[in-house]
């Protein structure tokens, strides 16, 4: 039962020459999970088996070659009948990669700084061999897809740029739009909602109908909701922030915003466990979004790693979809190679499962704020978060932030703080 019956496959994509059933528009990574094939790539150094982990473009474990271009994220490639992809970095195949031997040979790790420095001949060989093993994808083909048209000569002026269309960003954009401000709301995901897409149903959590309403109100106020549009960064240009935005296949846009509200949320936290990087270990929110939007079932028995309200809600959502759930407050080790077979749970021992959903608090996505010089503060465990006051003001004038980028906060509170940041940005 790879998918809920209400979500039938309606197209076929080609992976390494083999047809794979998919739903048009869903990310390739979701189609692979639904097909029970989480193994997707091999890691850079040890050729460890890997699959899509974060499912939101924040990690580097699902890179494939598509359209003649290397290192495309499978979680960002929409399925379509003409989608042809090749896996990378494996000889001869990701399933049976001879270079996977490196992982066994260097079972205790490889100290590349001191590898074969004992004599000139050995060292020369090490340099030559290491070069041949380096890199992920091949240089783009001469026939790689056309480069999108150039951006307009002038940067677009917007009264406000809101980054991230999760609960905080939506609420901030709504507060700005209510005052008639022209807002550009950008999110790198193709669907608005951020973590609301996981439909966790936490206390006070706004629904996706609210998200759709906000998008409509932003547009009615002369704003734009730019989905599938990543903010590449901020640079200081002519003394003011300049942003470059990128939509896959649509080229770059330059934006000079009057105000900036950063609500990019957090990056999924990897599972801190021995072999916690195995295919079949995924971020819980991404899995739940794929379940809700495309009926993707990650397996028959899933271990939900993490504690607290979100982990419990995630477990309930999987259970409601008919997946057997194992609670795993902590995971010490993951068993299985090409995919998860079991997890070691301290105090419980070995727990059989064929997938792991990681429901740990995300790491605040502080990079954009830091590019503008905003102060960050480490939380108790050292995880840095953007420092804000009660109105969402950062240490940089005109730069506000709200939601999980400022630390752990539930969706209802994130929306409330986003709203306050939007109100502060109006003034």
């Amino acid at each position, binding site marked *: 039962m790879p998918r809920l019956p209400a979500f039938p496959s309606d197209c076929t994509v080609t992976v390494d020459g083999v047809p794979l059933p998919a739903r048009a528009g869903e990310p390739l990574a979701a189609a692979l999970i639904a097909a029970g094939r989480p193994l997707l790539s091999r890691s850079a150094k040890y050729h460890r088996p890997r699959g899509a982990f974060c499912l939101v473009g924040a990690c580097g474990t699902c890179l494939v070659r598509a359209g003649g271009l290397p290192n495309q994220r499978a979680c960002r490639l929409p399925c379509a009948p003409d989608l042809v992809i090749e896996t990378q970095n494996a000889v001869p195949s990701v399933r049976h990669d001879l270079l996977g031997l490196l992982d066994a040979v260097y079972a205790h790790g490889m100290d590349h700084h001191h590898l074969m420095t004992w004599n000139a001949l050995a060292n020369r060989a090490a340099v030559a061999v290491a070069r041949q093993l380096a890199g992920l994808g091949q240089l783009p083909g001469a026939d790689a897809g056309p480069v999108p048209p150039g951006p307009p000569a002038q940067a677009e002026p917007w009264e406000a740029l809101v980054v991230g269309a999760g609960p905080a960003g939506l609420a901030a954009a709504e507060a700005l739009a209510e005052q008639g401000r022209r807002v550009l709301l950008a999110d790198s995901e193709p669907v608005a909602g951020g973590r609301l897409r996981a439909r966790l149903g936490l206390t006070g959590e706004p629904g996706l109908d609210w998200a759709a309403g906000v998008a409509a109100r932003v547009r009615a106020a002369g704003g734009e909701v730019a989905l599938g549009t990543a903010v590449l960064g901020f640079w200081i240009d002519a003394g003011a922030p300049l942003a470059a935005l990128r939509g896959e296949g649509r080229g770059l846009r330059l934006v000079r915003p009057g105000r900036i509200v950063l609500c990019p949320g957090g990056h999924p936290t*990897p599972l801190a466990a021995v072999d916690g990087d195995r295919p079949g270990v995924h971020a819980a929110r991404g899995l739940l979004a794929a379940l809700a939007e495309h009926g993707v079932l990650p397996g028959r028995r899933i271990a939900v790693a993490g504690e607290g309200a979100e982990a419990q809600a995630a477990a309930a959502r999987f259970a409601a979809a008919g997946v057997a759930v194992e609670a795993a407050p902590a995971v010490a080790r993951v068993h299985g190679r090409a995919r998860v077979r079991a997890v070691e749970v301290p105090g419980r021992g070995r727990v059989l499962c064929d997938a792991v959903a990681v429901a740990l608090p995300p790491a605040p996505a502080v990079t954009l704020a830091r590019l503008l010089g905003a102060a960050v503060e480490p939380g108790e465990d050292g995880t840095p978060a953007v420092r804000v006051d009660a109105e969402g003001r950062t240490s940089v004038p005109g730069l506000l932030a709200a939601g999980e980028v400022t630390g752990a906060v539930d969706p209802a509170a994130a929306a409330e703080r986003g709203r306050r940041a939007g109100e502060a940005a109006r003034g």
Partner: protein
Amino acid sequence: MGKEILCACEDVTVDDVRRAFETGYRDLESVKRYTGLGTGPCQGKSCIAAVARTLLKLGATPAEVAPFTARPPVEPVPLGELAALDAATLGLDEGVPAEPPPEGAGVAPVAAHPDAPLPARADIVIVGGGIMGLSLAYELGRRGVRDVLVLERGYLNAGASGRNGGGVRAQWSTPTMIRLARRSLELCDRFAVDMGINVWTRRGGYLFLAPTPEQVTRIEANATLHRREGLRTRVISPAEALEVVPELDGSRFLAASWNPDDAVVFPWPFLWGYATRAQAGGASVRTFTRVTGFETSGTRIAAVQTDRGRVACQLVVNACGAWSKEVAALAGVALPNRPTRHEILVTEPLRPWLGPLVSVLGNGLYFSQSQRGEIVGGMGDPVEPEGVVQGSTLRFLARFARAAVTTLPRLAGVKVIRQWAGCYDVTPDNNPVLGPAGFENFHQLSGFVGHGFMMAPAVAELYADWLAGRGKDEIFGRFGVDRFQRGPVAKEDFIIG
């Protein structure tokens, strides 16, 4: 068995982080460089929090786990899309400065490094723990001069030594520079074995493309000199250049200067290697220690003042790269140096396809493929003003991308994952400033105009010979700071970037 992976992009494990920490690389900037974590396609998004937690558990201080400097772009972006930007509409602003950290600006604060306290005195104090200062300390130790203290205000590799493209070439336009560079190339070849740490020296050659007849004349004259000096440099046609790099657009240049013996290296381990061996030879290296002034006595400098105390000394070497001018000014000495920002970027790692470092004469573009497979490249900007500025600009991405895609069209689909900047330490004649200035025991080792990294191994040997009383090479007469008062100076004209 199994591995607990912290950085999935670069396969960095908890054990790797522990090993780095125990070796003395405790702050997150240093751990990043020593392990490679956070330098892959995800840009540290998924690993940085996990690494901070790991370091805290190992005993790091909160200041030490402050996140490493944020570097745009946040997501990979193809050069072809950047090439479509109009650089003329983009400014050259300083950007958010990476160094020095502005108060409360969220840039990583200088960590409280648990180094041993400063000694009260040292025979020689070297200011600047870049490759110049560290290689000199190492070479002095080999010559029996052991009471040497190196002061570095940041972490190792914080300055231009950790920010350059790693090119090492013998193709210069004067016999002196060719001699120094050839010696450095020899030392690079041996570095891993001599110093016990890999620097991944690869003799892939340098290919200079000459797009105009004037540039062709220039490379032909240089090639004549090179052959006289015993180099294998040849001026080759576009068709021959395409045999070296088939992906080049052969219509974009008239001829090329090709030397198959030039090399690229991985810069960071040079500093670790020199620092480790210098300390084994008796020197002390203190990071996160800032020089704040000098005590003078007549014609001599008597002591160096730092934010961690005072060190009495017999001799001071100012080897601060772009900061040399301001450090000399602390002693009231004016240097003619003009530090100038130089931006650089790195792309996604690709399987090996590019042999040489390719450079285009005229616009300053250069790029090569690193040992890890990334394309590393930079390009100077003629309107860049003087100043120690290390922020990044979108203008550079646009200019580099357009020049790179024009030179090698298939780069259009290659994605940039990180940009940064360092400073060239420029002098009026593009040659270094060596020897005492202002005070008889205040030695200068600066002004290398973007090629200090490649010259350092050879220059350090000669400087150590001189300071150890083993003879003074002619470069110290040629490149004294007083030359600028003596009238017109012959300019080294083969600067790239």
